[in-house]
């Protein structure tokens, strides 16, 4: 029978049962998953266009309207030109990474694909780890590229107004763009894994990024400062600033550490729930 012949022909057992690194295989599989859906391309293309564009637009408008700018605006630029260049691109560009991060994990649930995935890798935590590593590294690489491209475009645009030097101490601000995006991507991935619903998780993270993070700064007093500082995305965003604002209680690196700690805590929760919950 023609049908059975193919079935009976065994697949070549490349590295089967020889202690071949399973984690390496999972990384490869997660990479295949990531590169075989369109949402990955759309989101990354959006980031690649949007981030440098806004790194150009705001410096351009600043230069064009320099004479009308208030003294505070002028002072802000002089005080932290790199932060001023990076922030608009970062603020808009982060949305595409947040959405992609959610989709990478939550779409497995909405499509039912998670069942195929877990049948292939029943060690669920290892699967989540592989997914996290692959996605973090991908966003880190792309994020660093757009950050540096955005920075150089912004610096070029500001040239008539002031010279922005990239001293060794300032590299943290530019490289921080990629670091922030990578951590945000992981944060969104974890959120998607926890909520297991694409629309719900996207709503959650977009609300956090665009509404909660800003609104929280309106809370008065010491409590307001704490909430503002320790809100995960605010904490992480500080990595691109030269000087943190007055109501921010930590240094940029400490802020990034807080963001990483939030992500790690939620990752552990997600891993625990992934094992506990029925798929």
């Amino acid at each position: 029978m023609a049908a059975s012949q193919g079935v009976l022909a065994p697949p070549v057992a490349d590295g089967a049962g020889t202690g071949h690194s399973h984690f390496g295989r999972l990384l490869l599989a997660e990479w295949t998953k990531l590169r075989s859906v369109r949402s990955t391309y759309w989101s990354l293309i959006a980031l690649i266009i949007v981030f440098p564009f806004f790194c150009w637009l705001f410096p351009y408008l600043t230069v064009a309207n320099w004479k009308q700018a208030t003294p505070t605006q002028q002072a802000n630029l002089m005080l932290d030109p790199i932060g001023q260049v990076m922030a608009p691109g970062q603020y808009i560009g982060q949305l595409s990474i947040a959405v992609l991060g959610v989709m990478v994990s939550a779409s497995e649930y909405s499509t039912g694909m998670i069942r195929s995935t877990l049948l292939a890798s029943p060690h669920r935590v290892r699967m989540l780890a592989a997914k996290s590593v692959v996605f973090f590294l991908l966003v880190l690489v792309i994020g660093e590229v757009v950050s540096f491209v955005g920075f150089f475009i912004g610096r070029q645009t500001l040239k008539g107004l002031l010279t922005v030097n990239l001293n060794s101490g300032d590299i943290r601000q530019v490289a921080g763009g990629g670091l922030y995006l990578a951590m945000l991507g992981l944060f969104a991935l974890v959120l998607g894994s926890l909520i297991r619903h694409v629309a719900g998780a996207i709503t959650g993270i977009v609300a956090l990024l665009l509404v909660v993070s800003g609104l929280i700064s309106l809370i008065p007093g010491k409590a307001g400062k704490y909430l503002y500082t320790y809100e995960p995305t605010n904490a992480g965003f500080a990595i691109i600033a030269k000087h943190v604002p007055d109501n921010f209680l930590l240094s940029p690196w400490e802020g990034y550490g807080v963001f990483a700690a939030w992500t790690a805590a939620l990752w552990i929760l997600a891993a625990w729930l992934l094992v506990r919950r029925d798929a």
Partner: protein
Amino acid sequence: MIEVKDLVKKYGGTTAVDHLSFTVAPGRITGFLGPNGAGKSTTMRLILGLDRPSGGTALIDGRLYHDLRDPLRHVGALLEAKAVHGGRTAFNHLLYLAQTQGVPKRRVSEVLDLVGLGAVARKRTKGFSLGMGQRLGIAAALLADPKILILDEPVNGLDPEGVVWIRELLKALAADGRTIFVSSHLMNEMAVTADHLIVIGRGQLQADMPVAQFIAQFSDSAVLVRTPQTAEFRAAAEQRGWSVTAAAEDGMLIVTNSTAPLIGELAAERGLVLHELTPQRASLEEAYMELTRESGEFTHHPSPPPPSPAPSSADALASGGLDGR
């Protein structure tokens, strides 16, 4: 070899799988039958480690699914619900699964050709018909050439040609010494495909026996007898060791483990009047429905039968036949 021991799964207050124990042996097709909501899919998900059991164990070759090294090389599964991202091509869906198991890339093309999806391998699966989706699921199950196959309603959505294809495929795989565990809610499909049957209802085991035995046991031949002398006839028949059950209508009896000629001879011998003597044979489907009627989750409860006209002989027979076992 699949061993299910005292398996329990509770969702809140409802028990989907209720102390289920059975063994699925290699080299044959084991049909897993039950009405919708009987717990078939849940049982399969528990075996596959997708759901956590509330009690008991399900072992595959003596190990939990979770502890299998390269599980797809041991067990191939097709689940009832869709388990594919529609934006990914059929090829890439199988490729990532192959990569987790260290299965080479060309095996992906091989199984896609095998299930007849070679031409659409590079198409995204959201455009697939139900039947194509099933074929892709079967391709995924066969990907790493497993010794055990667990298939949840594999003929769902397949055209008649596809149904025959699946049947032949499963038979070939079983003949090759593999363990085939296939669920269905259709008795007739299982009667022609399976060698062994496991029937569940409300998460409980109803029957676990070879198909031939199931047919012999549950499609008892019976004879419908109508006589004005019910008491005398009953006494005479029971003397012969036949079992007699009163049917719903007065003067109507169901006799099992006898035959129409024997009953006719008995009546002639004793001078009893017979108004009707009709041999009956319940279909396997009826026997199965009767077996699981009480246990279906979504059973529609029929209103009490009207006093007249006469109940259908099949109903009368089925209850008679099964009570007698």
